[in-house]
């Protein structure tokens, strides 16, 4: 019995571990919008980061969702420099139990610095 539980635990751990990953797209050109307050201490230190952590509903017929990047104080140029997509175990689970209708959207993006 115990060995079955251990095996199940291991399988679950593998699933959780492998379902988490990060994909980052970064433009070769352009400079990022800086964060003069240096409020972060990760890969994005010195960059102005916009974080989106929400659940979106995907239409079963279109399977498509467009999020618009607009000019704001945290994205002065309205143009993208870096975008990071993160998939988590929770996100995969949510998608699974809702048959793909609800999707976790965990995104970070950094805009281009505005040029004068």
């Amino acid at each position, binding site marked *: 019995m115990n060995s079955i539980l251990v095996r199940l635990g291991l399988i679950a751990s593998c699933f959780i571990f492998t379902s988490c990953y990060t994909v980052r797209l970064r433009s070769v050109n352009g400079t990022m919008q*800086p964060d003069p*307050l240096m409020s972060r201490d990760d*890969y994005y*230190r*010195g960059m102005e980061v916009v974080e989106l952590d929400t659940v979106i509903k995907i239409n079963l017929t279109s399977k498509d969702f467009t999020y618009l990047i607009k000019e704001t104080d945290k994205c002065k140029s309205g143009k993208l420099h870096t975008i990071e997509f993160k998939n988590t175990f929770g996100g995969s689970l949510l998608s699974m139990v809702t048959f793909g209708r609800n999707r976790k959207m965990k995104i970070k993006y950094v805009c281009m610095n*505005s*040029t*004068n």
Partner: protein
Amino acid sequence: MATTKTHHLKEWNTLHRNGPFPLKTLYITELEGDGNMPIKLERYNDVAKEIQRLIKETHEAGYGFRAYGSAWSMNDIAHQRDRMHYNGFMNIHIPIALDDLHPNTNFDASNLFLFECGTTIKRMSEVLSAHGKSLKTTGASNGQTIAGCISTGVHGSAFNVGAVQDYVVGINLIIGPNPNDIVYLERHTVPALTDNFASKICDRIIRNDKLFNAALVGLGSFGFIHGVVIEAEPRFLLKRYVKKIDKKIALKLSDTLDFKNSSFKIPEETDAQDFGNIPYHFKVFINPYNNEAEYVVELMYKKPYVSNYDDPFPIIKQSLYRDLIHLFTKMAENFPKSIPWLVNQLKKSILPKVDEELIGTLPEIFWDAPYQGPAFACSVGVDHINASKALKLLADLTTSEGPIPGIFAMRFVKQSKATLAFTKFPVTCMLEIDGVLWEKTRKIMSLTEYSKRIIEVLKQNNIPFTLHWGKNSDWAFPGLLETMYNETKINEWKACRKALLGEAMATLFSNDFLKTIGLVDDEVFIDEDLIVSL
């Protein structure tokens, strides 16, 4: 109108977390949008007035003021405990037209560009590339602002070119709140701009070699650098080789830079007589914790620009997982004996891949460097003829009194004309020790103690040296400034600064770093001739 946001803060830190340092107020200024003010020169002069307003406000409050850009310096040189100004949003550029060239100049107008202080090296490269031009050299990275680079002497390893400040031909400074306080400096022997153009961005033009050379590496204290005129050159390609070569040959090359007669040759990089070509860039990597018979060296050769070259962008190296860096630092602090093992394990992440060859433009080769966590860097400048001797001394110090979680490298830079350039030797070997920042423990000395020992060892062995202004050291070491520079140079720099700024503004643009190093001196003799056009 340019606008400024004011943040009331308690502390400020560098990109690499070498602080925190106390701070009262942070100003962040942005230019008027080009939709409302389409003419660049108008926006440039408009923001100059805004900076003067901030200087006035700060002066009236009895505080100090200092501008900074990307905060890449690893000490407190960019810091002012009262008021700091972030200039990273000030990035106008203006190409210089033929009609704007001084009648006695030898510059080619198409190579001259005015860049505003907060323009990063990456942005400059992109602007220049769009004109078919390139920077002559960079700091082997691209995130620093141009004002930050020249203020601290940022350099690469182009040993026939110099550091970033060495291609600056004009400096536009805001030295106070009053009319007549916006000045444009050039060398009188090498003028660049007409009075007509210069007077569009300043109240006063001063052409004076001595003053220009002093202000060039001004440590952020010669006023607010609003813009610089740089000389670019036609775009070129760099062919980069990474080789492992015999230690003795690598050290002999460092001491002589005689690539022509060296036994080390790259077959593709020889002349018709089979002598080695002179590289554009030469760098030696040294892991002080292994006794391998070979060093990894990086060489780059300049090639004419062509458009059809292979994509130089490999898959960008993955950043080291942050928690891993934290773990390594903690291991280093608690188990110093593990440091050599750790450095060896990190070898693949730190050192370039041997026998890797690629070709690309300067900005492609020296592309973005991702933030890798708290870091330190000690960088000592010695005459390149003393390179191997200094390396041995500092490597022995590191292994016998350390270990220290870092790795060594040597880069080579041509002599600068700037009065307080640390690249002061005919060719300066910058001996660098880079690594992860650690905390002092019972078993491992602090970074300041290590830096102090570096100074002591070089002094004891009579090796003349300088220190990189933007890196870590024991800046309070007694008599450090006088050890590095002769008295004439020190007094010249102080006198030029005081003569240009006057008493009140010299105080306003001072900071703790300047006081610590001994460059704030009330007793300095002021000769008004220092700030006249010659």
